[in-house]
């Protein structure tokens, strides 16, 4: 039986890595990948806590998050592709057309 603290630490680590990745990386693809990490860190915590509390709700929430993550990835990558086609780049710094 894996202790709950280990699960929580893993989840927090994953979340933190994902968060940092989203905030500091300049490549859109990497940013999306980081976002996945972030979401999955949350999933780990949800599932782990669900198990600890002997409740299916954690797993059910995790499933919702996975579905949302899939949708997000599908839309996100489509956007990245379109963006890339226009700018010949996936660098997020070039994406400043709305800059005031």
């Amino acid at each position, binding site marked *: 039986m894996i202790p709950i603290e280990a699960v929580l630490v893993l989840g927090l680590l994953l979340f933190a890595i994902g968060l940092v990745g989203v905030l500091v990386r300049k490549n859109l693809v990497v940013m999306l990948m980081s976002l996945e990490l972030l979401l999955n860190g949350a999933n780990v915590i949800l599932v782990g806590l669900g198990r600890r509390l002997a409740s299916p709700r954690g797993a059910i929430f995790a499933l919702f998050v996975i579905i949302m993550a899939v949708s997000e990835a599908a839309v996100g990558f489509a956007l990245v592709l379109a963006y890339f086609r226009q700018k010949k780049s996936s660098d997020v710094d070039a994406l400043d057309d*709305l800059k005031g």
Partner: protein
Amino acid sequence: MFVLIPLFPLLGAAANGLVGIRWFSRRAVGATAVAAAGLSFGAAVASFVGLLRSAEPAVVKTLFAWIPASLVRTAPGGLASLRVDLAFRYDALAAVMTLVVTGVGLLIHIYSLGYMAHDKSYARYFSYLNLFTFAMLVLVLGANLGVLFVGWEGVGLCSYLLIGFWFGKDSAANAGKKAFITNRVGDFGFLLGTGLLVYALGTIDIAGIAAAIGRGGLAKGTATAAALLLFLGATGKSAQIPLYTWLPDAMEGPTPVSALIHAATMVTAGVYMVARLHALFSFSGTALTVVALTGAFTAVYAATMAFVQTDIKRVLAYSTISQIGLMFIGLGVGAYAAGIFHLMTHAFFKSLLFLAAGSVIHALSGEQDMRRMGGLRARIPRTYRVFLIGALAISGVPGLAGFFSKDEILASAFASGNYLVWALGLAGAAMTAFYMFRLIFMTFFGEERFAAKAGELVHESPPAMLNPLRILAVLAVVGGYVGLPRLLGGGAWFARFLAPATGAHETGLSGATEMLLMAGSVGAALAAIVAAYVIYVKRRGEPARRFAERWQTLYRTVSRKYYVDEFYGKVFVGGALAAGRIADWVDRRVIDGLVDGTARLARRVSRLAIFFDEGAVDGAVNGVGRAHLAVSSALRRLQTGRIYNYALAVVLGVALVITIAVAVF
């Protein structure tokens, strides 16, 4: 039947004026015009015969209601139903007038064929001539003052068109305008008189007016006022003092026009009108005296001006004015038939004189100045003979037309007891004889004074011109016998024929008195002729020249037409111009000043508005804009455009929310 009389000239005028002017040959134009005049004359003769046979003294033919019956307020405070029809009235007076108009008109149409043969506006000329005939016939046939006025204006218009026929010449165009405008003054009086009759009686029907007067429905003062206003119209149309000045200038028109319009027909319209309304004038009495005095003074006054004229046509023009004055004497003493009788005989011999003068002018290729004529008796003997007949007739030589009519007028004037009028009339008649023979002697006797080149070209006129002259000459001789007085074995048939239309008039003079009067006027005329012979043939005009030198001021005054033209020009034309200048000044200074002032005020106000607009309104709007700009330029710095900045903001925001949530709960 008689409605056809004016119809033919109208058709002729329309055919020549609308179609012929572009598409008819000269021959067709002339044939159309003469046929129209001829058919009209035929209709007039047929109507005349019909009138002689019928027992009815007058026939009225109503074509349609022109102004439908409508209530008008009349002077006594009542209401009357005024109705004006397009109606024609044919009676003895209309018969005489239509015969004169169409008869003389036809002869002048024929004469014009020759006289105007070389004119380029042939169709226009004949169209006007037919139109004039139509208008004149409407005038004499009108059964009420409305229809009469249509004709009255119609002849005025045609007179204007024909005087100004050669409108390329300044003097002709101006003469046309002068005639028209002078006539407008008279027409204004005519309209006022008609309006007064509507107001006083509620009718303008000629029979209706006479009937109303017979019933005593008209006050004496009103009758006098209406009659005098109408007579003002007559002085304009018939060229009497004070509105006569246009007629001598009207000689700018072609000579046949002078003969037809300004001698035989249109200028006698005033005489006709007064005779037509004899009931009104007789009732007034005062108006009748004014008519007689105006005629008498005009007769002498115009004759004096004829003494000094050197233009052959102008002598005849003044003679016409003087002769019409004589007709007005006849009317003014109540002898309406005598006035109309003289109108008819005058139409014969005056149109003869004008046409013969036209023949003289034609022979001399346009020369009108008698000082450059002389000795033409041998060159154009046929013209000379008819001219002499006309001159004898107008002078009142016994046996010719003028003698009978003139004598009847003078006898009536004497019988009326107004010896001033009679004396002036007698003087006018004697002066007529003098200036007519002055004209004859200057033109046909003595040495030839025309330029040598013109002399070679002197030629007798073509038959188309001479034959109408011959017919008119015959009429000028025999035309008087229809009114042969009882004294000379006649029956005064003319006066009896006219009596139903103009009322009977008896002079009441004894045969001896009448004979004495006749002898007196004949003696005066013969003396005048002899005097003219002595002065202008025996002494070659020497006494006349000496007289002119001796009495220079008088001579100049008369030959400048007593400066009446200058006076009218100064007072009326100048007055109108001055009034125009005053109105112009008021317009510029007062009206324009007001308008400009308003505009200036508006500009000043609007400048204030601009200030407010730019300062306050625009300031507020721009201030709002500038405030937004300032705020937004601060805020725009937040919009870095970098995703990770936004993401960081989201994270920090979430962290803040969680912190608050934890702290609170």
